[in-house]
């Protein structure tokens, strides 16, 4: 459909105005710059609210400068502000000024996972008794369905410890030299989002379950990782509310409950 010429004028003006709202060095008359401040400040506040530990790690001024770079390069593509920030962790991977804080991007990954868990669909979480009630000779046939809020962030850094001490502790606990990689489990069995530490290799276990593999196959894939411990992994998964369904063979748990 052809637009009258004035409508083309409006589109051209909106295009120029939109670009100047996002660009760092744009020069605008004061009254128009109100909108530029609104756009940049509100988006930067939205990121600060979504990534509070990242902000604490680098400080509010550095965070704001970093957020404005991100906003300019990857402005929101959706009017649902809760969807903004999916690319922030990846952006931090390549953000040279923050390179010294090597674990920053993984902390952002964990905070984004918590955010998605907050908005995930509701489901009832299963207790581990459902697993222990399965006859030992049928354990090989068990299939587990993940809770919609559950996800894993595996890091070469002690991401759970870093997040926990910066999110909850009164004083930040220094991490010893021995602090190594950690695998974070994010869940929301009810109203509150939980972060738990899983044994190394558990990300493979959870990924295999998410692909629809049986428990035996998922355990086999994780077991090749040094430090993986099946009993601990399953205990943490159930206790944190990461499992929403269990079936043995073709008999689905939904039919049992």
């Amino acid at each position, binding site marked *: 459909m052809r637009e009258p010429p004035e409508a083309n004028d409006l589109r051209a003006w909106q295009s120029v105005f939109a670009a100047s709202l996002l660009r760092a060095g744009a020069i605008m008359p004061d009254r128009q710059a*109100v909108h530029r401040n609104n756009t940049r400040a509100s988006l930067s506040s939205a990121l600060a609210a979504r990534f509070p530990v990242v902000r604490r790690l680098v400080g509010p001024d550095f965070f704001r400068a970093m957020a404005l770079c991100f906003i300019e390069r990857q402005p929101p593509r959706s009017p649902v502000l809760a969807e903004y920030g999916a690319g922030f962790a990846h952006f931090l991977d390549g953000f040279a000024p923050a390179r010294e804080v090597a674990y920053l991007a993984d902390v952002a990954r964990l905070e984004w996972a918590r955010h998605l868990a907050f908005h995930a669909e509701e489901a009832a979480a299963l207790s581990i008794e459902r697993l222990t009630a399965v006859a030992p000779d049928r354990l090989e046939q068990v299939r587990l369905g993940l809770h919609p809020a559950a996800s894993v962030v595996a890091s070469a850094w002690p991401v759970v410890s870093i997040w926990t001490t910066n999110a909850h502790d009164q004083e930040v606990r220094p991490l010893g030299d021995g602090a190594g990689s950690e695998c974070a489990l994010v869940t929301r069995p009810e109203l509150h989002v939980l972060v738990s530490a899983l044994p190394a290799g558990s990300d493979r276990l959870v990924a295999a379950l998410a692909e629809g593999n049986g428990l035996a196959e998922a355990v086999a894939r994780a077991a090749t990782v040094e430090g993986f411990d099946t009993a601990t992994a399953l205990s943490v998964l159930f206790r944190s509310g990461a499992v929403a369904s269990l079936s043995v063979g073709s008999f689905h748990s939904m039919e049992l409950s």
Partner: protein
Amino acid sequence: MTADRRPQRGLGAGAGLKPEHYRDILEGRPGVDWFEVHAENYMGAGNGAGGPPHVFLERIRARYPLAVHGVGLSIGSADGLAPGHLARLAAVVARYQPLLVSEHLAWSTHAGVFLNDLLPLPYTDATLALVVRHVDQVQTALGRSILIENPSTYFRFETEQMTETAFLRELARRSGCGLLLDVNNVFVSAVNHGFDPLDYLADFPLESVGEIHLAGHAAIEMAGGEALLIDTHDRPVADPVWELFQALVARIGPRPTLIEWDAEIPTWPQLADEVERAARLLQEAREWTYRSSVLSHAVGEEGTRCAATGR
């Protein structure tokens, strides 16, 4: 048949619903008439549209009437409306069955990029045709009429062909939409452009007003010492805005009125005080309208009797 003209307690004074107040509201059951939510805050994130926002909103919706206020549809985009976002708005409306649905006379998205601000439009025939088409599209998608809100503006366009009030009157007439009259926005724009807010209200198509908004604003000083008001929603409603509101409802009678407080969120009692103040002014307007209607009714009957007896 005599219409019941006694003062009715309808959808009176309400508050913008904030997560910070979910528990106060559910535990204290305050005597607020209704709540309004921003539609975009209940559209989820990623693939999920669950979690605490919906758990609490469903509980509150079970006890109070609700209005849905869209802040991201970008009705003034020359690009056209985003069909995906319109579908998500329709889903929120279907899920919560609000009494009122509103959006803004503004644009906020261009070429798929969301700018997270309500940006102004030049009031031209071309803009009017565009906005009428978009409002029609929204009303068709939702299967109901919506209210469109007057904006706060900071600058004007040289190309304008009509006033904001004339634009809104034509928009309401052509699209069949109602209007949400934000009294704070009227005041902010009046100060910023140097017009009398009472003149604006006198020109406003008041018969289309289905809802009123009240909020706080800030003043900034620009280079050159000129003061500019900014629509911040981060503090109590200013006294001159209360006075304008009082004058407005004395003239048109009570309308559903909302206190918006979206930043620097206050405690619930502080917000409830603002709602209570609006409720008192609505009650005054209700009694005033009742007295006037009784009076005109009495005068009308007297006139009828005189006519019947041929005096």
